């Protein structure tokens, strides 16, 4: 009996207990059986609880933190709290800059930031919202640093306006007010190549980086899924129809790569595809080419290495489904007069679809978020969305943007995972 049938039978049983349909049990016996059921549920749960707690802390909480980081950005609010307080009452939709009192407060805070050497951080943050404002803030901070506190309290605003004419511009104040929000959607806007214009409306950015990268990752993942299916299908079919002894031996050639370290396989592709690598040497020795072809550090090398790495994920589910298909259907179609091709397309192929869809979804899900192989063999052309997330985590230190990009990717994966669960059932995943 399958798990689903068991559950169904169980539900039917408990339904009978509850509805009081004549089951021939006394009320005491019914209570007893309910107690037993509760006890069994409790025992089953007790086995699972330790892992649930562990996974919640070790895995789900980190993912939650990342989602939170993608909208939570208190940096500016921590740098200039009093200015933001004062800006609360200012109407940013108008065309006048904030009043003198607010300017004084800001001048004072900028003075302190400059003294603590933190004005650069503010400049960086505001510059993200309004490119070019970094120098305004930095040079003003240098000038205000020299003034004393009393001057700043009374006429800080004037000094500020005198320091740089950009402070007369209402845009920089708008940017400061909006950057001061602790919870922001701005990283999601950046991650989808959108931005807010001066009126606060959401508009497209001039540069189209992230959407393009998402599209490219999807395209590469689709291509890899197609390639693994195209070359995995014949092999899986051959293995499924070969005599058991041959199939078992050949299966080792599928499983050994599957078990071999990802880095080993990536290393192997570097050795094969590089300028003086095996493929180029071979082609030159045969005089097919006279100059080595640049294959490594391109999109081509990413695709071929990932196809190699993910191929077993396609072959294994296909094989296990094909193994269960009774060959007599196909023979029956042939003997009833179907042409082999049409018998294959209309009888055999539809029966392999569960395996094909399982393999395709698995390969697609894994390849869309791949990091290591593109990072090592991809060059600039073969980078995928994961690589830009790593870049923002490690090099540009824009963690919030990395988190926003990661969250979008996560939503995409969750959707695919949900489809996979509906279609295949996650508990039906088989290994090896």
């Amino acid at each position: 009996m399958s798990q689903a049938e068991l559950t169904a039978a169980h539900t039917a049983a408990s339904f009978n207990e509850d509805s009081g349909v004549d089951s021939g049990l006394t009320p005491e016996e019914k209570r007893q059986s309910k107690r037993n059921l509760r006890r069994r549920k409790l025992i089953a749960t007790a086995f699972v609880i330790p892992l649930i707690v562990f996974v919640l802390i070790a895995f789900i909480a980190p993912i939650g933190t990342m989602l939170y980081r993608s909208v939570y950005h208190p940096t500016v609010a921590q740098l200039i709290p009093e200015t933001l307080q004062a800006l609360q009452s200012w109407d940013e939709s108008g065309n006048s800059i904030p009043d003198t009192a607010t300017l004084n407060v800001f001048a004072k805070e900028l003075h302190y930031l400059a003294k603590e050497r933190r004005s650069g951080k503010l400049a960086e943050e505001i510059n993200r919202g309004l490119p070019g404002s970094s120098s305004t803030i930095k040079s003003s901070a240098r000038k205000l640093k020299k003034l004393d506190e009393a001057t700043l309290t009374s006429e800080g605003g004037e000094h500020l306006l005198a320091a740089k004419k950009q402070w007369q511009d209402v845009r920089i104040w708008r940017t400061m007010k909006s950057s001061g929000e602790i919870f922001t959607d701005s990283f999601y806007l950046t991650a989808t190549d959108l931005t807010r214009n001066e009126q606060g409306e959401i508009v497209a950015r001039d540069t189209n980086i992230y959407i393009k990268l998402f599209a490219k990752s999807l395209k590469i993942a689709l291509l890899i899924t197609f390639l693994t299916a195209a070359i995995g299908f014949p092999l899986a079919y051959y293995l499924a129809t070969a005599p058991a002894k041959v199939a078992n031996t050949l299966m080792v050639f599928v499983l050994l790569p599957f078990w071999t370290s990802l880095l080993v396989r990536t290393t192997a592709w570097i050795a094969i595809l590089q300028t003086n690598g095996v493929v180029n040497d071979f082609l030159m020795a045969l005089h097919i080419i006279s100059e080595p072809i640049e294959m490594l550090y391109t999109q081509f090398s990413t695709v071929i290495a990932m196809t190699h790495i993910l191929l077993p994920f396609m072959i294994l589910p296909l094989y296990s489904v094909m193994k269960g298909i009774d060959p007599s259907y196909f023979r029956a179609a042939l003997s009833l007069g179907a042409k082999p091709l049409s018998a294959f397309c209309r009888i055999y192929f539809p029966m392999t679809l569960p395996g094909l869809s399982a393999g395709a979804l698995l390969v697609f899900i894994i390849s869309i978020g791949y990091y290591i192989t593109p990072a090592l063999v991809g060059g600039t052309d073969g980078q995928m969305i994961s690589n830009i997330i790593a870049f923002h985590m490690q090099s540009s230190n824009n963690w919030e943007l990395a988190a926003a990009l990661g969250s979008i990717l996560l939503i995409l994966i969750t959707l695919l995972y949900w489809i996979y669960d509906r279609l295949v059932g996650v508990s039906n995943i088989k290994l090896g």
Partner: protein
Amino acid sequence: MQFPKYFNFWHKLGMHSLRLTAWAVLAFLMLPILVIIPLSFNVEPYFSFTEGMLAFDPDAYSLKWYAEIINDDKWILAIKNSFLIGAAATVIATVLGTLAAIGLSRADMPLQRMIMAILLSPMIVPLIITAAGMYFFYTQLGLAGSYLGVIIAHAALGTPFVIITVNAALSGFDYSLVRASLGMGASPSYTFFKVIMPLIRPGVISGSLFAFITSFDEVVVILFLAGPEQRTIPRQMFSGLREQINPTILAVAVLLVVVSALLLLTIEYLRARGERIRTGQIS
């Protein structure tokens, strides 16, 4: 190849080209792995075949890259770390995963499908997302750059595999054995170790091997979470491939292929054994 009598020329051609394609795909799977073996014995510091190697000149081959591994403290530390972190993560993943799989296999388990989906999610979420999230969260807990942090992270990544294999081993499990054992007065823990465990042992062991290889092969989380103290073999290979490529990496790669082959053989043996236990051909 034997063909049925009713096969005409086109059928045979089709079968032959199928076989040819299948072998070509097998070659595509295996050749990249086989190619690195001779390259790791290259006497020159390159990733490519030299003329001497192609002429099978013994002087063109050497073991010096293997010696290099043994003489390099960084590689020795990496090897130690890989086994230490892998073993610790495997123990945690196996214990928690086995218990959970037993609980989940019971029809009495509430919210079974949803819990299963959540517990298997570490396998599906891209590692870069896991790694970034863990970096944010573990730093707050002070676990970044520590062995404990890396071990916990790897244990979390390994549990789905244990659940899957133990779940498969439990698929034919007869729970009346448990009732019989308890009914005859055995304690629950005695029943667990003497009745349940012997029957699901192959599944538990292959699950733990999967958990081990997951940790052993993992590099993205290590990149984000580990300090220089916790560098593992894949981490060392990653920086080697990015900075200065030399055949030491190929020598390490060959050693890793040997490890994988051993693990594969063990798993296959266990699977065959598990199959026989389930079908009652073994006592």
